[in-house]
């Protein structure tokens, strides 16, 4: 049976990532001119070597697995660190793993960054860009981490192409999740280098995205639960701790149960991805269908149980709510994944 626990190595990895992020994440930069923290990214990616965890050492990576990547995703969810991990270390890396493409080595070493040029909401490969003789034209909306990427992996009917981001027109989008900037990308006859057949590579990247985003949702849910529990222990109303009221206790107990489930489900998805288990499609859709509602519920309870202060911009709860909600629409909503699951487990509509 799949191992759903965290190994000692994974716990050590978590400790080092958390200690870095505790020190360095500064969410006040999100409304500034440079919301993405590339300095923090360099430390995480290059200095600590976490950019290419699932990439074999022979290909310049850390030779770990997607299980460890999932632990990093949990910590990124917990901290909302504005770094391009999802685009480069999950989507682009998953697309390139196994292709022997030279770009993989640069990504794994943290020398360059890339992302997959699809709308963040995508669940399956679709083409809005055309390629003729290695020259690409078209527009892709709502691309994650494209604003800071060096290279864009652009799917077309003729294949997946690597395009230098500088050769494209990138228009920043006001994203609902302030901590995860999106970009509209227009290719006006940009030159591209063929990487491989787009269908399977994009599908693999999107499955990896779905499977691992569940770990980010888990991290968000855990932050929200922990923060709320701490708050209700200190906040007093009617001369009693708010956390002493049974209705609050029961809601937080139910939330803890849900988070406990989300942890098992997210671990299962990460393990299936790491071991290329035949159950991976089920595991990934299950993870998206289950963990997103939990993360949203946790963020909503965090806002509600902080009362007035939770509704303000000055408390970070709103950023977690926005991230959880946007994640719930990323790589397919829970509703869509339930429909996908129905087909996978033979429960037709």
């Amino acid at each position, binding site marked *: 049976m799949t191992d759903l626990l965290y190994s000692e190595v994974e716990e050590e990895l978590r400790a080092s990532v958390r200690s870095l992020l505790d020190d360095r994440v500064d969410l006040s930069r999100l*409304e500034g001119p440079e919301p993405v923290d590339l300095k923090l990214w360099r430390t995480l990616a290059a200095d600590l070597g976490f950019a290419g965890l699932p990439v074999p050492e022979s290909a310049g990576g850390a030779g770990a697995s997607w299980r460890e990547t999932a632990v990093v995703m949990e910590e990124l969810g917990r901290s909302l660190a504005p770094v391009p991990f999802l685009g480069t270390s999950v989507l682009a890396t998953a697309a390139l793993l196994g292709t022997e493409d030279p770009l993989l080595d640069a990504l794994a070493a943290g020398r360059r960054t890339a992302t997959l040029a699809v*709308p*963040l*909401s995508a669940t399956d490969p679709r083409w809005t860009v055309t390629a003729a003789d290695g020259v690409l034209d078209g527009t892709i*909306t*709502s691309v994650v981490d494209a604003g800071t990427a060096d290279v864009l992996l652009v799917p077309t009917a003729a294949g997946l192409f690597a395009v230098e981001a500088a050769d494209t027109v990138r228009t920043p*989008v*006001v*994203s*609902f*999740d*302030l901590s995860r900037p*999106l970009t509209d990308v227009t290719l006006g006859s940009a030159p591209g280098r063929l990487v491989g057949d787009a269908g399977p590579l994009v599908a693999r990247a999107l499955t990896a995205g779905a499977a691992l985003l569940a770990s980010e949702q888990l991290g968000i849910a855990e932050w929200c639960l922990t923060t709320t529990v701490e708050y209700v222990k200190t906040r*007093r*109303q*009617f*001369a*009693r701790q708010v956390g002493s*009221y049974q*209705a*609050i206790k029961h809601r937080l107990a139910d939330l803890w149960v849900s988070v406990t489930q989300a942890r098992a489900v997210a671990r299962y998805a990460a393990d299936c991805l790491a071991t290329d288990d035949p159950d991976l499609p089920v595991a990934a859709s299950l993870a998206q269908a289950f963990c997103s509602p939990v993360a*949203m519920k946790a963020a*909503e309870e965090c*806002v*509600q149980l902080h*009362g*007035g*202060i*939770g*509704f*303000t*911009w*000055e408390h970070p*709860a*709103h950023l977690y*709510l*926005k991230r959880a*909600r*946007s994640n*719930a*629409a*990323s790589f397919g*909503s829970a*509703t*869509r994944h*339930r*429909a996908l699951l129905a087909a996978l487990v033979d429960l037709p*509509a």
Partner: protein
Amino acid sequence: MNPAELARDFLRSHDPAGADPVEFLRARFDAGLAWVQFPPGLGGLGLPRALQPAVDQVFADAGAPDNNPRRIGIGLGMAAPTILRHGTDEQRKRWLRPLWTGEEVWCQLFSEPGAGSDLAGLATRAVRDGDDWVVSGQKVWTSMAHEARWAILVARTDPSVPKHQGITYFILDMTAPGVDVRPLRQITGEAEFNEVFLTDVRIPDAHRLGEVGEGWLIAQTTLMNERVAIGGAAVPREGGVIGVVADLWRKHPELRSPGLHDALMRLWVDAEAARLTGVRLRQQLAAGQPGPEGSAAKLLFARLNQEISALELELLDEEGLRHDEWTMRRPTVVDFAGRTAGYRYLRAKGNSIEGGTSEILRNIVAERVLGLPQEQRADKDVAWKDLPK
């Protein structure tokens, strides 16, 4: 003559076209057609509240100027019924007319950083000094404070008695020295609310509403009216956010899916049930004062707004990942069904906090309607100054 006929009569002698809006509204008030359930001389005719909608319809059909009720919702929904019930004749005369015409905007200075759900724990102090009271403290969650001419205010006048007993209700002149209004930005990016800092602000004793120490009782009138105002607005079927989502569904077949369809229909059913509940509540209230039943309407309103706007965002798929802007704005009108889906989703989170959290409202229903035992409390028989802070 029924008041709708009176309204038509009024329109024959007051041509709404080209009339100065304020003059027109003043005349309508003086004709008793502002709120027919108020007494004659105070904008009403002493008639059942249920007759008002027909009057409003007559004026709306004639294209008459209105008082922009959303902008002055706090005055209409909270200050006015409280002043009517607890004010002196002089106070009613002074404040009700410009309140209704919209000449004077009102805000509400109740909540404090340490006194949200536990409103009676408030710490803002008012000390008697000759014919004045000198008030200092901090209020939060104050909408419209930056536009308001007057505020309804509760402050502590006697810290040596248990907390519910030492509170007095005042009308505060927002232009008085020592009133400092600072924007408080919300989850939506807007600063719809404010923090209001009061530093040695002087309020004449003539602006006290009710007796010294009666403030908590009087505040109940305000709060029960607030809850009915928030939850009980009369809307047609598919009024409010459910109509926004239903229209989106009808106009965008490409966004539909079977799973979302059942979710939509569940919310449609809940919204229509809540609407009919509001209709029935207003039929019950037609003669009387709002009671704890208004809490049910507000509870439903909050939950539905939150669930429906969440469905809307999910329905929008990729579009729901994008937003219009996060600039800090200072809105003067709050429209829960307005702006974008993302705004509605975020703004709705406040519906279960403002005007009494859903948790407090459930307590009220459980204790006052169902008669279940009160929460065990350590703060009822202790002087406010001796409570742990």
